[in-house]
């Protein structure tokens, strides 16, 4: 067994690991509340557009595929860390960062488009809840990207230490969690919106 595998296993037994999982559960409750709000309000279009007329399926699907791929590459950085490949860790983190930023760009682009065409959050309860639910996910992605940047610098400077491997493990949980949330957003907001449910 080499050193990094030990480090990962140590992280998985640590208090921080458990604490972070519990934090993820609280974030889950946060998103559950936002989904509930969306479920209540998504028919309240107030004479404005509905999801059926606004959402483009190919666009949402592209976003989904990019985010899912970034989850995969972030998993690869974890495998690289277990094998103690520092340069591979950095490589996959950078790839994940690029995919994540692309996703965020696409999301902001969509928001901008909606606002420009007059379909902002002021129009209806439906659009308020749409912007807030998807925007909260986007905000989480932004925090993840910030974290990823700092972590990459730390790995470059300090190598795969106890601290950086811990950071990497937690970041991976966070990133996969955001992926799961996005799958719910894709299903509930875009797919169900597309068929008009």
């Amino acid at each position: 067994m080499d050193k990094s595998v030990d480090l990962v296993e140590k992280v998985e037994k640590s208090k921080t690991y458990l604490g972070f999982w519990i934090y993820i559960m609280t974030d889950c409750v946060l998103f559950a509340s936002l989904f509930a709000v969306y479920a209540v309000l998504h028919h309240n279009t107030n004479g404005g557009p509905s999801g059926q007329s606004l959402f483009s399926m190919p666009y949402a699907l592209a976003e989904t595929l990019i985010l899912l791929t970034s989850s995969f590459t972030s998993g690869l950085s974890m495998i690289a860390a277990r094998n103690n490949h520092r340069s591979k860790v950095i490589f996959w983190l950078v790839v994940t960062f690029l995919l994540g930023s692309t996703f965020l760009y696409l999301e902001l682009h969509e928001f901008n488009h909606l606002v420009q065409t007059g379909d902002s959050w002021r129009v209806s309860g439906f659009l308020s809840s749409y912007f807030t639910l998807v925007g909260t996910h986007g905000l989480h992605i932004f925090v993840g990207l910030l974290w990823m940047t700092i972590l990459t610098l730390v790995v470059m400077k300090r190598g795969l230490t106890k601290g950086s491997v811990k950071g990497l493990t937690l970041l991976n949980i966070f990133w996969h969690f955001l992926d799961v949330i996005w799958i719910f957003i894709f299903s509930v907001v875009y797919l169900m919106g597309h068929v008009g449910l």
Partner: protein
Amino acid sequence: MYIFAGILGLLNIDAFKHDLIQYFGVAAMTLTAGFVVLALTYFKKWKWLFSEWLTSLDPKRIGVMYIAVAVLMLVKAGTDAGMMRLQQSISVGSNQGFLKPSHYQQVFSAHGTTMIFFAAMGLMFGLINIGVPLLIGSRDVAFPFLNSVSFWLFVAGMLLLNTSLAIGDFSGAGWLAYPPLSELQFSPSTGVDYWIWSLQIAGIGSLLSGINFIVTIIKNRTKGMSLMKMPMFVWSVFGSMTLVIFAFPILTVTITLLYLDRLLGMHFFTGAGGGNPMMYVNLIWAWGHPEVYILILPAFGIFSEIVATFSRKRLFGYTSMVWAIWAIVLLSFTVWLHHFFTMGSGADVNGFFGIMTMIIAIPTGVKIFNWLFTMFRGRIKFASPMIWFMGFIILFSIGGVAGVLLAVPPADFQLNNSLFLVAHFHSMIVSGVLFGYFAGLTYWFPKIYGFSLKDEIGKYAAYFWIVGFIVAFVPLYILGIMGATRRMNHYSSNLGFQSLFIVAGIGVLIIGAGLFIQVIQVASSIRDRKKLQDKTGDPWNGRTLEWSVSSPAPSYNFAILPVVKERDQFWNEKQNQSHKSHNKFKDFYMPKNSYLGLVIAFFAFSLGFAAVWHILWLFIFGLVGVIAVIIIRSLNENRELLVTFNDLSKADQLAIRNEQ
């Protein structure tokens, strides 16, 4: 419409214009703060305060600071209560009382908000910080720095709430700020924003504490302490913190959405634009009802420890107590609709929530009977914690039965929003929560300070509180049935309310006397602290691990971590029924002090203040500051200090030498 306008946002000279009573409040606050600053400078205590307290990561010290802040807030919100009672005693017929309606509604909103979030929650987290690590045989909580951040966020929220007294106004929309009243259209001032952001900041602190204590209880228990050997207080905190992590994210979301409505013109809870005000009421109570149990469960836990200790018997029905806690945890998420049966969700839905509400009384009843059976045939010592307990068990049961009555939807349709309801929940919060925390404070005081409080005076305080409570709140039950609604600042003289309101006002004075006696108790005990010194470390003949160490407990709690074989380990060791196993002393690590919690709170306060007044640059400053501090802390890997034999207290060194 301006979202972020100008260098000072919405802030202008009008924000500093108040009526005479508010100026008086501001002056009192400023003078108190000035006096404290002066005293600290005169006695050259700043360095001591900073290095021993403000930057401390010792949960016991953080606990004491929580309690100090909470007591201040208790007095402040108690003054609000006194003002309300005075207003209602005189504001009848042609007399309009001394508070304008616009001020009166701020007073009752501030009273509720302060009492729940900053008095009750503060006392609770204070006692949890003091109690939990000691009771599970641990040297610390799982995340000492996070604990300090939680505390300082609590302080930042408290400061923001009190800033509203001096700059601008406070929310007049009640302690839960129901829309549409709390929407921009009907509450155009920044009062509701103060409410939102002080809760938001303190709430995030509470959430972090919830995570911290769950991990502490799961991971930091000493060797041999399996879950079913934990003291009941620890179980109750476990239940309460589980509620925190499920409930507080809902609060975060709900008040954020309200803020988005007000700031960006969204339509979550507005009457027009496709919003749904009743959704707010549902969401806020999905947090709010568990919140009530978050507060009461630790009080139940404290009473469980106290009753066993002062009856000199093991707690009756330990297992059923544990199951009762978890039944309450689960059921508390299934009853929220009983706060608004009048929403009109139909007989079936109301019936379900009514029945669930009645069911939750069963585990609570189990606990009541278990305490009574613990006392049965015990050798009861009537120290002041026991007096609090006996006041609690009677008043809480009466209030609880009133709650079951309110759970019947047809009855609730009559009593909803009346003073009957106000009397009911004060029975829960004052005689349940507050009495429990007062008992806990008396009980653990010697463990923290090394000397006991004078018990005789403590008993008088308890008697005054109990009698005062009855005089203050029984009239409210009657008034409620007579049709008096809550939050009235004026009523017609032919309703016949006035005499009962005057009686209730007298009750508040008696409670005030009780509080004053408590201040006397503490002051007089500090004066005679040499005489009251706790030399044994075990003043009450206790049962749990905290009494096995010296008083005051050293910063590291246990020089040698104890080994637990059964419940009430320490008691059984004293009875020679169980042998203490002698571990060897090993060096250990303790966290270094950190001032970063304080810094985070400074930035969080700036952020909150900026959000209230729409000051863009200050908002960015606060946000970037918080993020920067988190990054700086996470990059610092040198956070701990080695503790060797020479660093131990003299008592511990002696004990270890004697054993070897």
